[in-house]
């Protein structure tokens, strides 16, 4: 984990005259030089539309685009690239499950289970589907230690359960969810499982076949890749039972005046010209992460969280929203200070060059359960160091001083 900062040009920036300390990684990550150059290289050497040209450039861009599908499959332990659909982000990947699978497999009285830890992306699509189908949405609660309540989950499961939508890690509390256990329990009653992996892919090793989930969604931009690329993994036997949710060019096999037939596999779901350049640059991000090693990144994330918890828990005015056992969380630390709104905390941190997130973190029901109006959140990644947390602590002291709050 040495000299990593040098590979991220944005980290040379100064904010308000102070060196940038970027602690908003749960929102999006910064990009290394290799990803930036891959983007430029594609546009300067191989740019052409894919899947339809006979000319050299089109063949090159098609090969590069499809090669990333293989890389992604390998990266998350899928059986092969035919299980990988490219979308524009994790949210679209989740919506694809709703429109392409759930709409035709969930009906009146069926039950969908989500957890209290969900980001809006893995909650709102299911609220809407439940309304449309007259299905029932059930919520797995959390314990007072911010962990998923597995006993409550077991009680919610029944033969009526058709789909369980669960995050692998909370973007607010950092809670790691035992998704393999969740999946095994869901399969006993015949339910399918969709995992929102946005916070874990690129932070630790993921193997979708080991988890045995049916759907797995994540975003490239949170794992050093460009914005505008998401991934939906679908277990191969389920893919053929799904209908397209967008129609148009590229996804068709043959088109007549009144009807059309569609391609099979992931290509059936990628209508129109996809985000070719960003997918190709995403391939460079995957290679970069593989070179560093997911195990090393996971250890680094955990080390930073441990350090941050130790530093921030030394202040009696600061409340942390994090599981007590460090093994149950990673990368994310939410906190609040009585008498200071998180927006004011974030403003003062920004004055010190420290970028953190404040507010509801696209998880409004969860913030409600935490009993606060909002939280401030630091989230870490491979280029962060303990010095960054020292800078955050310095900013914290400034907050307490300005608002005249005892440490």
């Amino acid at each position, binding site marked *: 984990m040495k000299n990593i900062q040098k590979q991220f040009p944005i980290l040379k920036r100064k904010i308000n005259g102070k060196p940038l300390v970027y602690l908003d990684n749960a929102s999006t990550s910064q990009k290394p030089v290799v990803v930036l150059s891959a983007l430029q290289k594609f546009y300067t050497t191989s740019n052409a539309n894919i899947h339809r040209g006979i000319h050299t450039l089109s063949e090159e861009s098609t090969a590069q685009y499809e090669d990333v599908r293989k890389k992604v499959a390998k990266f998350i332990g899928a059986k092969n690239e035919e299980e990988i659909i490219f979308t524009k982000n994790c949210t679209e990947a989740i919506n694809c499950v709703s429109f392409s699978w759930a709409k035709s497999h969930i009906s009146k009285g069926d039950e969908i289970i989500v957890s209290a830890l969900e980001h809006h992306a893995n909650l709102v699509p299911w609220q809407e589907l439940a309304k449309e189908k007259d299905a029932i949405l059930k919520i797995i609660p959390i314990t007072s230690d911010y962990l998923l309540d597995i006993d409550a989950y077991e009680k919610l499961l029944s033969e009526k359960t058709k789909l369980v939508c669960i995050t692998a890690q909370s973007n607010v509390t950092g809670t790691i969810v035992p998704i393999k256990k969740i999946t095994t329990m869901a399969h006993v009653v015949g339910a399918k499982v969709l995992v929102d992996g946005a916070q874990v892919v690129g932070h630790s090793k993921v193997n979708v076949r080991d988890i045995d989930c049916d759907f797995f969604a994540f975003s490239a931009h949170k794992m050093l890749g460009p914005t505008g690329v998401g991934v939906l993994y679908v277990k191969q036997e389920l893919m053929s039972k799904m209908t397209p949710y967008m129609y148009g060019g590229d996804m068709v096999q043959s088109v007549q005046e009144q009807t059309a037939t569609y391609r099979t596999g992931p290509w059936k779901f990628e209508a129109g010209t996809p985000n070719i350049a960003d997918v190709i640059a995403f391939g460079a991000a995957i290679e970069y992460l593989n070179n560093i090693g997911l195990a090393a990144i996971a250890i680094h994330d955990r080390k930073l969280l441990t350090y941050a918890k130790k530093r921030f828990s030394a202040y009696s005015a600061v409340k942390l929203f994090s599981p007590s056992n460090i093994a149950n969380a990673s990368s994310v630390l939410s906190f609040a200070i009585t008498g200071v709104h*998180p*927006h004011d905390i974030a*403003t003062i941190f920004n*004055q010190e060059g420290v970028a953190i997130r404040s*507010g*509801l973190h696209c998880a409004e029901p969860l913030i409600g359960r935490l009993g606060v109006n*909002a939280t401030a959140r630091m989230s870490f990644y491979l280029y962060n160091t303990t010095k960054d947390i020292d800078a955050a602590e310095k900013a914290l002291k400034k907050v307490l001083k300005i*608002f005249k709050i005892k440490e």
Partner: protein
Amino acid sequence: MDIYSETILDHYQHPHHAGSLSNPTIKVAEDNPLCGDKISLELTIKNGVVADIGFVGTGCAISQAAMSLLADEVNEKKIASLKKLKPAKVYDLLHVPISPGRVKCALLGFATLQKALKLIK
């Protein structure tokens, strides 16, 4: 100049006109759902003049201090003149630089007041 001036902090920690009125003419509430700032505003109107004003709110220092400053400004003023009030007045009262991300915070009290004024015939 720093956004957390003594004036802002003083109005945030000791807001003027804080609390409900006993028999208000008008009661309105407004919020910024994305950040959780809330203001509930009450006015007592007598002969076309704000005879008393009170508010209850939660939120960031900027949103709450802006409401407190605005309450001082509005109290005992004629409704007709208040209807001409512009957001620029709030920035004058705050007297600190407001970044684009904090505009909604700064103007929450103003939006709440506008809502109340619209109810007065």
